[in-house]
């Protein structure tokens, strides 16, 4: 059967990627699982025997639960914000025929060319208690006291949205560009005004991009380390900073591994849900 052969060719073409994923991703994650089942012994680290204690603690202890919920919540809000800010931008970039288009694209990509730490320090300079934003707010009389813009949810939200916006925009531009203009024109001749064309044609046809952009930004957000570490400070923790701390400061490898496994499972569940949704959309389309 020709289709069978096609499948094998596909597998052949995918195999470099599959091998890379196997050795660089699946095996390391799988290696975490045995570690996560070991008890922690203060001073020496990984102890003997097996225990589910780290998982039980991660999923019941209010300290850990709050961090997990905060991380997932941050993921959702950052995704939503990048989508809301990024979609109009991507639409303009994809549809514009102006000669400024390339400059605008460059402007969107520009933050990616700067070192992450530098960008984050930039935000610290802006958001700190005596930072630029607070100085302006007080100078303009919009605030009496300096606002707390760092070491909390707001700070992480601002920093992460800024950092991951380009990813969302680039994914959306590619998808919107692929929507044939004639399909939108057809809707117009059939009596659809600008908003009806957008809601009935452009938006549904860009759904796959919205989905993949959202998954990308969500996964990047909940696994981001540097920005939460710098903008969240030592006390406002997310899962990635917690894992970092467990591994490198407390040398509690088992607890860190358990947390890492939990995070991986959350990501996998979301990707699975996303592909399920995409498949349902495709079945309709």
């Amino acid at each position, binding site marked *: 059967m020709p289709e069978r052969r096609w499948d094998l060719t596909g597998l052949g073409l995918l195999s470099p990627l599959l091998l890379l994923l196997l050795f660089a991703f699946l095996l390391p994650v799988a290696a975490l699982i045995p570690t996560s089942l070991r008890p922690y012994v203060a001073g020496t680290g990984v102890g003997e025997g097996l225990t589910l204690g780290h998982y039980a603690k991660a999923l019941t202890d209010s300290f850990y639960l709050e961090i997990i919920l905060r991380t997932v919540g941050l993921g959702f809000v950052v995704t939503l914000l990048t989508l809301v800010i990024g979609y109009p931008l991507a639409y303009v970039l994809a549809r514009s025929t102006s000669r400024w288009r390339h400059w605008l694209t460059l402007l969107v990509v520009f933050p990616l060319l700067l070192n992450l730490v530098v960008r984050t320090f930039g935000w610290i300079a802006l958001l700190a208690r005596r930072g630029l934003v607070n100085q302006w707010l007080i100078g303009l009389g919009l605030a009496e006291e300096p606002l707390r813009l760092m070491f909390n949810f707001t700070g992480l939200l601002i920093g992460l949205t800024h950092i991951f916006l380009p990813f969302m925009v680039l994914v959306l531009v590619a998808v919107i560009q692929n929507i*044939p203009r*004639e*399909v939108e*024109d*057809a*809707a*117009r*001749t*059939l*009596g*659809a*005004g600008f908003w*009806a064309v957008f809601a*009935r*044609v452009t938006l*549904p*046809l860009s759904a796959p991009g919205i989905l993949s952009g959202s998954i990308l930004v969500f996964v990047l957000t909940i696994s981001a380390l540097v920005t939460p570490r710098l903008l969240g400070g030592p006390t406002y923790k997310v899962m990635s900073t917690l894992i970092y701390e467990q591994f490198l400061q407390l040398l509690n490898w088992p607890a860190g591994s358990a947390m890492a496994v939990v995070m991986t499972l959350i990501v996998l569940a979301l990707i699975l849900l996303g592909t399920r949704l995409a498949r349902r*959309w495709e079945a*309709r*389309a």
Partner: protein
Amino acid sequence: MATVSLRGLTKRYGAAVAVAGVDLAIAESEMVALVGPSGCGKTTVLRMIAGLIEPDAGQVLIGGADVTRAPAHKRNLGLVFQSYALFPHLSVFENVAFGLRRRRVPEAEIGRRVSQALALVRLEGFEGRFPRQLSGGQQQRVALARAVVTEPRVLLLDEPLSNLDAGLRDAMRVELRRLQQSLGITTIFVTHDQEEALTLADRVAVMRAGRIEQVGAPQEVYERPANAFVAGFVGRTNLLDAVVVGAADALLHLSGPGGVPLVVRGAAPPGARVRLALRHEKLRLGDAPPDAANVHLAEVALAAFAGAQCQYLLRLPGGLELQAEAPSNAVFPRGAQVTAWWTADDMILLPAETADA
């Protein structure tokens, strides 16, 4: 149904003029073809009528009302795109229902009218399919049903048949004409295929470089082309340059390329340089009747069998080469000596002012 009137319609892209002052009046229920080579501006004209391109100058009137500045979604026209432009995320039913939903037609009526439209294009039972599950011809018919279901005032078709293969194209051509006549809808279609234009349209507008060169009934455009471009574009034609040597009994005697003597009906002063058009099928082979004004002995330089017809390249003494098309009941082989003949009325004397074109 409505009349359409274009007045001095013009569109420029930078320094390039895509459409340069097109005037055209289309009667109610008439089917008009805009035909011309690619880049002649015909699609731009169609899109300006639809409101998808804003003209730089001129007016579009539909049913006597000026709609030049009206947005596309308020014009109530049906447009079938060359690419069909079906909504890939919607079923056939929803594709056809799209325009009705925008007009807030009640659900029961939508069902009835969509079924009617699909019956009209013979696609009953395809309601639940998606565009990607349809063949090119079926997509074409969905696009047609989608365009006519809203009972538009004018139907616009952009190269409606060019994406179909030859057999299907002939069948769809008949379908299209049947549909247009049964609905009695004013229709403007764009094509680069002169044969399609001639067979389908009530009137044909031949365009070149943003201008209309000639408008007329298919037969009129074919028999009496306004200039060398139209003569060359519509039908298969030999174009000959000649000099008038004398006139008698409303006939002109001319000296053609290589000094070949030619006789054509018409009037021109002696010494005038003129251009003549001779259709391939008007040039006949075999024994000439006594009234044939042009009779030449020729050699068959090339012969190509094309089913019912045979195509020939003939070489006359003096080196003049003419193309001919004759029924293939008598096939002349390459190298054969034949008598080629045509009457004084078979050849068309083209107006002098466009002889340089």
